[in-house]
């Protein structure tokens, strides 16, 4: 299929592994899905220490279930990415360990206290789900199928995250203040979750033209703000003065003043070059190394039993 045909036919779940897709499409889809898969891994690792730090048995159970889900989502997405025939799962995992694999800006920052947890578990997960719901209509069918299962599970994550936020903001004055401080630290990063504005985005146009994305960064960011600014305020969080969030009466939508955000920091992170990037990538790489023996034994087993598997009649 040539690129013109792809653009003509682009629509929800229009393309499948059986279709002969041009390399531009396969590369763009791989980049996007690999980024998404990497982000699930890195988000899971960022949250993992809080299973231990959870303040009650209910939170511990729910949080361990959530971390388990995120790693599962990564597996689904690496499979969807592999189906494009550009990279294998092992290659993508190695790239991540080497520091070449890209992932969401929010997962490049260390997270130290329980007060920060809802910043990821409610706001970042809410943002992720807002975006993922639109990706059920992506043109690459295996990606859309992965989104079906991810979105099915993600509703629990967002509600649980909001439940933690509610609990903290109904806690002591000191707890509320610490949660507000965490919110102020994380808020600009959360807004940057949706990436640069459309005019500065490198991949946006092509991804939309071939139906990989159905909404632009700007649309998603604005509609996220419409829902989540009132939510933050409902729990008594005060939205920081900067970046300036303006309400556009004509369009009935919130809008962020992009110039108030730190884009140097964003682009440093996008290159995996911040201190936090090194810290998060290296700690994940160590974890991958530590379980090398599991992979080794699986490979050994695969090789040994593989010979006995009856051949399919081709």
């Amino acid at each position, binding site marked *: 299929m040539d690129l013109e045909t792809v653009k003509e036919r682009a629509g*929800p*779940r*229009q393309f*499948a592994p*059986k279709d002969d897709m041009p390399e531009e499409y396969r590369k763009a889809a791989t980049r996007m899905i690999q980024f998404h898969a990497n982000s699930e891994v890195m988000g899971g690792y960022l949250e993992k220490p809080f299973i231990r730090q959870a303040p009650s048995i*209910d939170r511990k*159970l*729910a949080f361990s*279930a*959530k971390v388990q889900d995120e790693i599962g989502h990564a597996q689904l997405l690496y499979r969807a990415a592999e189906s494009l025939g550009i990279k294998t799962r092992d290659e993508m995992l190695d790239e991540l360990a080497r520091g070449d694999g890209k992932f969401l800006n929010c997962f490049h920052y260390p997270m130290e206290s329980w007060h920060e947890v809802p910043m990821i578990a*409610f706001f970042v997960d*809410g943002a992720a*789900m*807002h975006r*993922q*719901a639109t990706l059920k209509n992506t043109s690459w*069918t295996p990606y*859309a*199928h992965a989104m079906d299962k991810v*979105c*099915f*599970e*993600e*509703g*629990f994550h*967002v*509600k*649980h995250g*909001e*439940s933690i936020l*509610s609990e903290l903001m109904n806690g002591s004055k000191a707890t509320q203040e610490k949660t507000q401080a965490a919110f102020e630290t994380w808020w600009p990063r959360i807004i940057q979750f949706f990436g640069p504005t459309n005019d500065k985005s490198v991949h946006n146009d092509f991804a939309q033209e071939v139906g990989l994305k159905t909404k632009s960064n700007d649309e998603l960011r604005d509609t996220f703000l419409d*829902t*989540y600014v009132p*939510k933050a305020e409902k729990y008594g969080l005060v939205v920081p003065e900067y970046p300036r969030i303006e309400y556009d009466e004509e369009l009935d939508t919130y809008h962020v003043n992009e110039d108030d955000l730190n884009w140097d920091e964003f682009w440093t992170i996008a290159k995996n070059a911040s201190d936090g990037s090194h810290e998060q990538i290296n700690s994940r790489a160590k974890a991958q190394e530590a379980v090398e023996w599991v992979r080794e034994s699986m490979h050994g087993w695969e090789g040994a039993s593989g010979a006995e598997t*009856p051949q*399919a*009649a*081709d």
Partner: protein
Amino acid sequence: MIWEVFRQDKPGAYHKHCGNVHAPDRELALQFAAVQHGRRMKTHSLWVVPHDEIGEIDADETSFGGTTDKTYRWATSYTDIEPAAPEVAESEAEQADVEKSLEADS
């Protein structure tokens, strides 16, 4: 040789098991599947898989879970929290459907 047949009714949908056919090779299996399973039903694509290539494990051999109380991992359990956004509500509704089907079977 038996081939299991999976039908997809429209582009982007899931291939669902719909039956099987006898055929000596993959090419004929596809042809027979098209005739037997794709003719009357709305069909966009069919998969055929050699029956012997399918692995199976059933409830007699293992415990699939879902029997212990894991209410903490369902959106529906957090009753004091209204879904923050339409996509959260949709996810919760899907989970509620699954819960209902589990209850109906128990």
